[in-house]
């Protein structure tokens, strides 16, 4: 499996560390139902067979977190952008 890092070019998967579901959004800690929302955010993740938005860290490269759309059945990389809410529009 190879991941096309927007900064470093296409690199072997061994350069990257995997985190998982990119859908994680840190909930507002100050709402009344924060505990429930944190449990859901931390533990209740989708694990689809098919396209999945997920986070990869280019630990042996630029140390950028990447949001990768990967088909979990074929490891096909369907899309990729710099992770984070204010991602570089040019890299998206």
């Amino acid at each position, binding site marked *: *499996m*190879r*991941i*096309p890092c927007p900064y470093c070019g*296409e690199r*072997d998967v061994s350069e990257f*560390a995997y*985190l998982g579901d990119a859908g994680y959004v*840190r*909930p507002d*800690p*100050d709402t009344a139902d*924060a*505990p429930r929302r*944190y*449990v859901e955010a*931390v*533990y209740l993740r989708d694990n689809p067979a098919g396209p999945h938005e997920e*986070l990869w*860290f280019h*630990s042996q490269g630029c*140390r*950028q*977190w990447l949001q990768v*759309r990967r088909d979990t*059945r*074929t*490891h*096909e*990389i*369907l*899309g*990729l952008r710099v*992770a*984070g*809410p*204010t991602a570089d529009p040019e890299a998206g």
Partner: protein
Amino acid sequence: MSEAAQPKRISRGGMIDRARALSFRFDDRDYTGYAGDTLASALLANGIRRVGRSFKYHRSRGVLTAGPEEPNALVELRTGDRREPNTRATVTELFAGLEARSQNRWPSLALDLGAVSSCFSPLFVAGFYYKTFMWPKSFWEKLYEPAIRRAAGLGRASGQPDPDGYEKSFGFCDVLVIGAGPAGLAAALAAARRGARVVLCEEDFLLGGRLNAERCSIDGSDAVDWVRRVEAELASFADVRILRRTSVFGLYDGTAGSHSASGTRTFGAVERVSDHLQQPPQFQPRQRLWKIVARRAVLAAGAVERTIAFGGNDRPGIMLASAVRSYVNRFAVLPGRRVAVFTSTDDGWKAAFDLSEAGASVEALIDARGEPPASLIEQLRATGARLYAGSRVVEGHGSAGLSGVTIMDSQARRTRLRVDALAVSGGWNPNLALATHTGSKPRWSERIHAFVPDVLPGGLAVAGAARGALTLREALSEGAEAGAAAAEQLGFSGAAGEQWRADEEASEVAPLWFVGESRGKAFVDFQHDVTHEDVALAAREGFRSVEHLKRYTTLGMATDQGRTSALNAHAIMSALTGRSIAELGTPGARPPCTPVAIGAFAGPHRGRHFRPTRRTAGHGWAQEQGATFIEAGDWLRAQWFAQPGESDWQATVDREVKAVRTRVGLCDVSTLGKVDIQGRDAAKFLDRVYSNVFSTLPVGKVRYGLMLREDGFVLDDGTSAHLSPDHYVMSTTTANAQRVLQHLEHARQLLWPDLDVRLASVTEQWAQYAIAGPESRRLLEQALGDALSVSNQAFPYLACAEFRWQGVPARLFRISFSGELAYELAVPAQYGDAAVRAIAAAGASLGVVPYGLESLNVMRIEKGHLTGNELNGTTTAADLGMGRLMSTRKDFIGRVLAQRPGLTDPRRPALVGVRPIDPYSPVRSGAHFLSMGEPPTLENDQGYVTSAAFSPMLNSWIALGLLSRGRERLGERIRIHDPVRSGTDVEVEVVAPVFFDPAGERLVT
């Protein structure tokens, strides 16, 4: 060497070098072959037909094929620590001094006592493991399994470390061509002529594939000349790489979509760099594992001929017809003098023609088809062979080697013929495994009666016999088209002109899987001894899907993967269950599609090279001080510094600890993780990643911090120093340095990208030394001179400073892991060696001692400081007595979930100290806590010891541990249960987790 020594060698022809005779040994006897031989061809040239015994029934077996699909001719190659079991003689290149032994026989190949098991063959039917040996149950492990393993084992591994090296390599190309037969060569040339970067992989040591084994022509001249011409032209391109002796064994994931050219895939391949030599040359590996990244690939791996299942179809001397032609034409070996051919295909006839041409007496051509093509019948006349059309071989005779066959003709008359070799041709199975590695299923072809590739993985094309196109003409045109198309899809264009002429050839195949009138065992898996009866039994017992059939009978599960015969078994199952072979399907294929040594996957990463060895800047100095090193995280750290006369390490550590606690010690702490943090929002960032507050920390001060995961458990601890406005340096534990940086970058990039803060790992950039003990301030005064004032007023506990020391940037932190008055001095790593020597020199008059990781550990346990043993991913701040570090004035990672009921339950194990009532009773980490008088059951478990040491200051064993409701139980006596290592329980008293200087007075003096 005279020809007489090789009785089956044909006197002329072949692609062997008769000027280079090579001597070799097989089963302790000396033989001679030629350069260009395989071990199999050399054995056959020497008249050796029987090369091994079968797995279950210990039947004599001979060479069946001339390629990697060989099920029978498996030998132990080489001797001593290079001995390699289950090596296929058919692909083992002969070299001078080669030594090989047959397998699975005792005491010798000719007299094998295990062959008796043939007499008990009803015991060994399909599923016999599950049936015969089930009772009494206790006998399985003690008696049956060891006995079966001894009787059934194939070759023996050397049992010694492999003395040879293995490499890994990446390859990149536009077009990867797999196989260098006519289709592959045509594809490679077409792609290369258009300017593509090409990698061509061929398993064999010669390019050409079947062209080396057949008598055929291209453009009117010998096809072998065409191969040489193409090879020379390919070699003339700078961007074409030909990898001989290289098997592509797997097709792996690709990248696709908008970010790269669709179709790029990664392939696994193994190059047998030195397998054809007695030993690898100096600095050369035995094998090299390739990861080849190809934008396009052409699979031109050809096809494998399959056998026909008839009684005794495993007799030595019975060979696939294509293999017979390989031995005759390529290796100039005549497999028999009186031979017959049994075929249901047109090209099986070629074996009769070639055998006759080479001087064998072709006794009979037995074609299962009633009306074979007239052109072939015409051609057969010249050989003098008798044609048996519409006939079958029902039995092969001769237990040590083929002595004859019984034929049943179209009128059901039986005739026995005396022959010493039989060529069998049941059709061709395309080598399509790579096309199915991403999960697509092959399709059944009614034209060639075999599975052919169907939906292909993106970027892969298939050409020639691998696609089911069995003639040379098709191979050449399909190969050229596939190679050109691959290049053109990538934007290459240019010269065409790949038009080669090949003769017409008959290539009809009629299905003949099993001869129903067979007498004796008809094998459908030679290597695992699966017969047609086993398939019938599986059908009767309901194991009817191909996947069940495979697992119940072990069909196709041996090293050859059943490539020559598994389809015959599927056809038998199909007939028995009334479903077509297409409906039945074929088992899924996964990489690797050919055996690959584990050593090749491991590559150079073994022993000390499993990971890089990381040494600190002060390593040389520590070595000079007599350090014993230990791997800690990724690093080598000094464990202790033994002095002459010390009886054991405990004596050394006791001395080191006492020296630090009474005078002064010096310890290399460079391996702790260091993260440089800068930016206007650095303090705000630290507030969010640490549970305690950092925004109140003034410049010039250090604070201990606790870092949680979002789930509320502790991730790591360490200190952060406020060096200058908007500039901090954080320390992490040695083992967690990478993880913490990843965690921090996640927080910075994803959670709070709006913060102005930047991070960099500087672990390797700074060397850092702890100077600890009552005399540490005096040592520093002597070492630093005027560079920095270190008086208690100017530089109090938890102070930090950046300064220049003898022209070098330096940092000093007044922090302490040992609990003593202590400092950590950091300099850029390139000055680390000089710095540690300068510190040691300055401390010489004070009696400074170097101390290692073990002493550091004893002292931190004496102080109740934490390491990875306590920060083990299951502990909360409160568990560790750090609840006060959970700020209530701000948000931080882990705050919300740390409040969960389960994590605030007062019954949770909490950090305590324990001291044995008998101070000399050793306590070991991992031992469990039990209340006095309660039996050692899981329900009664009270927690466990996390860290233990003998404290020279207290003259007692001490330990830290996690004890249920620990903080309420100070003073209670409990016991420590360690059944595996000590056996006897140790009675201990629960105490506070700080054993030494509990008020911390030494830190601040």
